[in-house]
């Protein structure tokens, strides 16, 4: 027996009411693609499930002013196929398209992917590169948190699904001279966790030959998506040349701490992160019509 009660609320307010009434005995399920395995293996126990799959107000991808806003119940398939994301924040569309398989992408949601707190979750890498904020509703009202603050340990989320709910992700729409890229390496093309994934957001000058700003997110390195801050600082203000890329490659391997894992060995990940970083920058810059000078 997995659980005794099953609720199918249609609004966020109803969810909050169920959570309050159940006093920590009931937890939220979005797509359920991770939770079902955890429950079956006895790693998560709960008396009841609040299935938020029917809450229409949490399913959207839209541009509002300077921001792109994504409802937490948006599925990976919807992210991957979104014309808006493909055009303006490709890193997230590409990342979502790599998750699991079509069956998993049709059920799994971005909110669930983040609350599951796997540091290499593809959408987490993309959202980190986009510097996204999560909007969370709970008994004390609403709060906003940067994505990097949603991880409290290995597989542990700041968001407690027996008390609160992520409703939305928000990030600044990449504008003029800004672009993104996503790289992923896995043992198979489907149904495989990443050996390495890397997301980049960057901004060039109008001449597209100087890197003005950059964000680099890498997984799986730590208990949370890793921001390669030193590499970012090193890159800011540099000309877009082969030499700059080389320096960036040397910097990033000093700041990441990959581990040997079932997916791949640390030494291999170190070699690959150099390749991925260079490719991501080349691709993002190329997307803006720029190029790397020899």
């Amino acid at each position, binding site marked *: *027996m*997995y*659980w*005794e*009660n*099953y609720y*199918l609320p249609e609004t966020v307010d109803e969810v909050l009411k169920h959570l309050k009434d159940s006093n920590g005995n009931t937890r939220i*399920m979005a797509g*359920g*693609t991770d939770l*079902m*395995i955890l429950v*079956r293996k006895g790693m998560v126990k709960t008396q009841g*499930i609040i*299935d938020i*799959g029917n809450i229409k107000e949490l399913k959207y991808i839209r541009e509002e002013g300077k921001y792109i806003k994504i409802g937490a119940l948006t599925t990976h*398939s919807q992210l991957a196929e979104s014309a808006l994301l493909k055009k303006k924040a490709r890193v997230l569309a590409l990342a979502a398209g790599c998750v*699991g*398989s*079509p*069956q*998993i992408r*049709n*059920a799994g949601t971005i909110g669930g992917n983040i609350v599951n707190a796997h540091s290499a979750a593809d959408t987490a890498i993309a959202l980190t590169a986009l510097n996204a904020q999560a909007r969370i509703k709970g008994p004390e009202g609403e709060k906003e948190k940067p994505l990097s603050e949603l991880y409290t340990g290995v597989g542990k989320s700041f968001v407690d699904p027996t008390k609160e709910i992520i409703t939305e992700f928000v990030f600044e729409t990449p504008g003029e001279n800004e672009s993104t890229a996503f790289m992923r390496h896995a043992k198979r*093309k*489907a*149904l495989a966790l990443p050996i390495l994934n890397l997301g980049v957001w960057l901004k060039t000058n109008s001449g597209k030959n100087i890197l003005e700003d950059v964000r680099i997110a890498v997984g799986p390195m730590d208990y949370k998506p890793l921001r390669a801050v030193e590499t970012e600082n090193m890159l800011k203000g540099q000309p877009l040349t082969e030499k700059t890329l080389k320096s960036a490659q040397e910097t990033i391997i000093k700041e990441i701490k990959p581990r040997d894992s079932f997916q791949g060995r640390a030494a291999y990940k170190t070699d690959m992160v150099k390749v991925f970083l260079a490719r991501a920058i080349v691709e993002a810059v190329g997307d803006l019509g720029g190029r790397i000078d020899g």
Partner: protein
Amino acid sequence: MVKKTINLNVNGKQYELEVEPDIKLVDLIREKIGLTGTKIGCNNGECGACTILLEGEPVASCMMPAFKAHGKNIITVEGLGTAQNLHPLQKAFLAYGAVQCGFCTPGMLMSAKALLDKNLTPTEQDIRQSISGNLCRCTGYKKIVDAILAAAAELRGEHEVKWPVTTGEDVVGSSVTRVDGIPKVTGESKFANDYYFPNMAYAQALRSAHPHALIKNIDIEKAQALAGVLGVYTSKDIPGPNIVGIMPHIKDTPVLAGDKVRHYGDAVALVVAESAEIAEEALRMINVDYEPLPGVFSVEDAIKEDAPKVHEGGNMLLHRKMYRGDIEKGFSEAAVIVEDNFKTRMNEHAYIEPEAGVALYEGGILKVYTITQGAHYHRGEIAVNLKLPVSKVRVIQTTTGGGFGGKIDVSLQVLVALAAFKTGRPVKMAYSREESMITSTKRHPYYMHYKIGARSDGKLTAVQAEIYGDTGAYSSHGPGVLTRTAASIVGPYEVDNLKVDAYCVYTNNPVAGAMRAFGSPQASIAYEALMDELAQKLGISAVEIRRINGYKKGSVIPTGQVLTDGVGFMETFDRVVEKSGFNR
């Protein structure tokens, strides 16, 4: 548990059912609605056999609480087309040979339908992407992709899929219609886990907690007292000798381990209960008192003088000698000698259908519907271990979802038979994917040392090899596999002087047995690499050295057999060279 009402539309028909709030969608479809075309292959969302369309989108129904479908529309394979009125996808799957064991087929069809509902002009890449969540172990996917392309063409109104493939009697040399094909594409085929009988109970086995340990005591009292448990059985409850094994002279595998466990897959107790869930709960209430023993996990360790013994007779199960000609003379005639060590790993068959069976004991006849690649062998083992005359035991092979050699050995057949025999109830036993992987046989991991000599014109003069196969905790087909390796020590290449020592060794690893090509592939890793090395050293091409040595009419193989007719190697080789464009 308080039941809850669910409303859903399945294949155009509206259902309102009272069900447990934690039932999964796949179980609702299979057990409450009775549509067993939707399969369970992994229960983990990985294999895609459970794929259905929810509001038109393919999803894994094994990962989904049924209530996620409340108020929604579902299509299963049964909603695609009927035997009398096949959907173009079903016709194309049959016409293009995309249906083999048939277990992945329903899920595969659902993913394909979802694609074609949106896109009638898919590229091969679109198709491969759309079925990337559906695993198939038989076809290699090519035929499935071709079938989906053909179905799309028919749906576009371009050209119809040619079906049936054959109509006349002259079938030799032409593609024929698969005899069990239609029920496999409509979801009507009954695999072992698709059988349901009134009053059916469920059996589950407790597996060893150690790779090597003595069993001091098994306390089943608490488990037996659990409500809903019909019986808990240990080795003492088996009427017969409690031993099985596919090699008639080496029966070494207990049905239920009594005094000792030799790998994690050993069953130590069997629970029969009103439901699979109760049986699983009862398993956790059985206390086994083990005395762990040091184990051996590699051939190197297992053959040491002071190695822990997996079986009383020691760890060396077989030393197969294949000596012919004069090995010293052979090497003395060689212009070049190459020598190296090779190691191969264990492989899992990973058939998409896990082991399952249903047993009934009625009117003195014990009937077992089960997956099997050896119904008569299984019947014999059941009869001996239950002390029943063979004439009172029937083993009926159900449509079997892939075997590849892994379903020849006894898996659950004697256990499920024992459960029905003891309780008098129809009993079903179905392995989880995890249990299947832990208990089933594997391809033997090999350790090989090879030395091959050749004349300056490329002709092989001598082969010397020592082969060690890790057969795990029990023999299974081990001696046969190692003997086959010795007999095809340089595959399809002639050599007159050879000295082969093949050893089959017990360890505390998973049991290795029969798997596709039975001992030949491991050797090919070694000798094909060395053939290339010989060619390089002799300055001839890799193609040429194989032509020089390949089996032809009149060739003598390592066992001394002279090949007379239907050798076929050279023709096959030439075709491969031609098609691949390989020329080095």
